[in-house]
């Protein structure tokens, strides 16, 4: 009875209300810090027909705006594939450069190197570059979707959504 009276006292009520409103204010402030509108490039975009990308080349034209390389190669498991690699080093997140002469992606920050397939072979990067989604859209253009990613070391590169296979 004394306990109930204490819990219902103005003292407890006041402190509970103060604590409650403070927590709500804190959460609201955290939410305020998350912008609703971002001026960032779209995560899903068309990159033209597959014939724009020659076998054995790495297209670097989309790196600055969209952060992806479009690779057309037959070196990954012998298949003739076009796929999009995210231009984010798997070490600490810098942007590597494609060095056509040496046929490798080289990160300027700490020297990580990746083959054209995206597999890491030198420097501190612990795992291969990540692929992002690519598919042939209805109008015959390839479409890249950066909201999904595929990691080689997790066996996700066998997913057909991670590449476009060139036939014929």
């Amino acid at each position, binding site marked *: 009875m004394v306990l109930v009276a204490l819990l219902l006292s103005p003292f407890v009520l006041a402190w509970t209300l103060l604590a409650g409103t403070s927590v709500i204010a804190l959460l609201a402030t955290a939410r305020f810090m*998350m*912008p609703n509108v971002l*001026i*960032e490039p779209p995560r899903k975009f068309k990159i033209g027909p597959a014939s724009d990308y020659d076998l054995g080349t790495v297209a670097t034209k989309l790196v600055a705006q969209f952060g992806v390389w479009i690779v057309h190669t037959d070196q990954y498991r012998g298949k003739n594939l076009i796929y999009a690699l995210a231009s984010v080093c798997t070490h*600490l*997140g*810098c942007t590597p450069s494609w060095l056509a002469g040496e046929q490798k992606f080289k990160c300027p*920050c700490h020297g990580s190197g990746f083959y054209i397939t995206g597999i890491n072979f030198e420097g501190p990067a612990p795992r291969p570059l990540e692929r992002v989604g690519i598919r042939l859209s209805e109008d015959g253009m390839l479409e890249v979707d950066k909201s999904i990613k595929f990691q080689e070391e997790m066996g996700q590169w066998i997913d057909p959504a991670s590449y476009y296979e060139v036939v014929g």
Partner: protein
Amino acid sequence: MSIGEYIRDSQIWKSIFRHPAPYDRRNRVVVMLTNFFLHLHPVSVKKQGIALSYTWCMGGITFFLFLVETVTGVLLMFYYRPTLEWAYNDILALRDVTTLGIMREIHRWAAHAMVITVWLHMYRVFLTGSYKPPREFNWVVGVLLLVLTLLLSFTGYLLPWDQLAIWAITVGSNMARATPFLGHEGPGAQILNLGGFDLITNASDARFILLGGRFVGENTLNRFYILHCVAIPLVVAGLIAIHFWRVRKDGGISQPL
């Protein structure tokens, strides 16, 4: 009546300084207690307590450097605009065309020096055992000040908006991805979902709040500018006041009690 006496007898002087000059022991105490700035400090300290070989004056030098940073920082704000269009150009202009634009180098070198002296201060406090009771709380305040000093350095690093700055902050802020529960690649983040809807994604985690976007961009520059120039310095100034006041309350500058 000399000019000095005339000034000290004037109403203006007396309205500012509530007590006469500290000409005897009692007045020295009274002056310390009635002056806003001096009251943070002990009325008296033991001679050995302020021996340079014992204190290294590292706390004092750190505070001096904080004042240098504040003054040069405020002056730099008159010439620096935290926007993609102007940030880097304004830094170049400070070097090339602004009279006394060397202020920026002073700001930068003093920042490096402050990080070093704040560590040496901590090292000295540790070696002399000055973290022991009753000074444990002041050690904790000091640790907070150390972290805030490093955060001031980190946020200031982005402001020149050159390649080094952008990639250093990209790399540094990637650590926030791995925050437990609050980073989208951190442990426990998967637990926080409502009916299959992830609450912690790369557009709602700690890194997103810090950067104001999915990657280092204009929002980031603005946020770091505000953190660097307003938010963190305010907290630091408050903690410095507490830190000094506690030195006085906890038995003066390092010495056996």
